[in-house]
């Protein structure tokens, strides 16, 4: 990882943490509201379908999580094991892509029925 790369990762993790901080609160608030009102799963899904606002929010949420988690995991692995270098960076990127793919798939499934 280049020197600018480390600074870039640090910035990316701080920015994604800020987004996650807001997103998690909104997400939990939505869950509590839905549970409090007593929506059924079908009622929730029907409200999500074709809802551009929800789709945008959860895409941002998924993207922030996909950026944040692998950077932290990379640091934890480097501290706890002897795994370093390019192979660890590649694995972290692969984990980021996996998180984003799984999250985006779930968002598309719920909001667009794809």
């Amino acid at each position, binding site marked *: 990882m*280049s*020197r600018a790369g*480390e600074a*870039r990762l*640090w910035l990316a993790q701080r920015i994604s943490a800020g987004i996650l901080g807001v997103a998690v609160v909104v997400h939990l608030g939505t869950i509590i509201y839905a549970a409090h009102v007593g929506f059924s799963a079908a009622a929730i899904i029907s409200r999500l379908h074709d809802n551009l606002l929800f789709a945008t929010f959860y895409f941002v949420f998924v993207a922030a999580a996909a950026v944040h988690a692998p950077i932290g995991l990379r*640091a934890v692995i*480097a501290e706890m094991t002897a795994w370093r270098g390019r192979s660890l960076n590649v694995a972290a990127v692969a984990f980021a892509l996996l998180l984003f793919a799984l999250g985006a798939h779930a968002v598309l499934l719920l909001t667009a029925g794809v």
Partner: protein
Amino acid sequence: MDSRVLQTWELSLWRGTEEGRFASYQVPCRERQTVLDVVTYVQRHIDASVSYRFACRVGMCGSCAMTVNGVPRWTCRTRIAEVAQGNRIAIAPLSHLPVIKDLVCDMSVFFEKWTTAGGAFVPTPGATDNFAHIPPDHAARRAADAAIECIGCGVCYAGCDVVGWRPEYLGPAALNRAWTLVNDARDGAGAERIAAVAGDAGCHACHSQQNCTRHCPKHLNPAASIAGLKRRAAAALWRGGS
């Protein structure tokens, strides 16, 4: 803990190198004894083969740091009565550094990291032309002042968990030194120094756990210095640095 009511300290001293064991000694209690006094007593009156390091005995040289009851401390300025558990005290070499013998560590790695972090002052080309005019209340001057009194004792380095997890991590002392120079208007290697500390095991490896700040005997705040370096590295990135 009042040392006057005790007869002796039950002392456990690390003997050996990386492989070794704690040996037990009994040392008479004295008024206002420091941990260094007790180790010195063992070496002069009980076992002359005990190895330890000290020089100034007044908290200036930074050579007498040891692990005292599991906590890294400067031993010349640490009253034994304030850190003993009852009358028991265990003294070991600093963590995260190779042990040469008994309480003496090899500090080479520690100071090599100062060099790696750009710890040497690099004068600007015109630095000798005239005195630099730096107002005492200038923000960079104050930032450097807050971090400048490091005595290089290695206590922060021994107390840092990240150093334990990632031995290549530059550590709080080297990064704190770099921060003082980054804030020195007379220094001409700011960009190179930011690049040096923003490497793979540089300032971004710090988790801001602040063990360095907690243990620093000079009450410095290396964690704040490291946070400052992170901000400078981000600013350099923003301006297109590498």
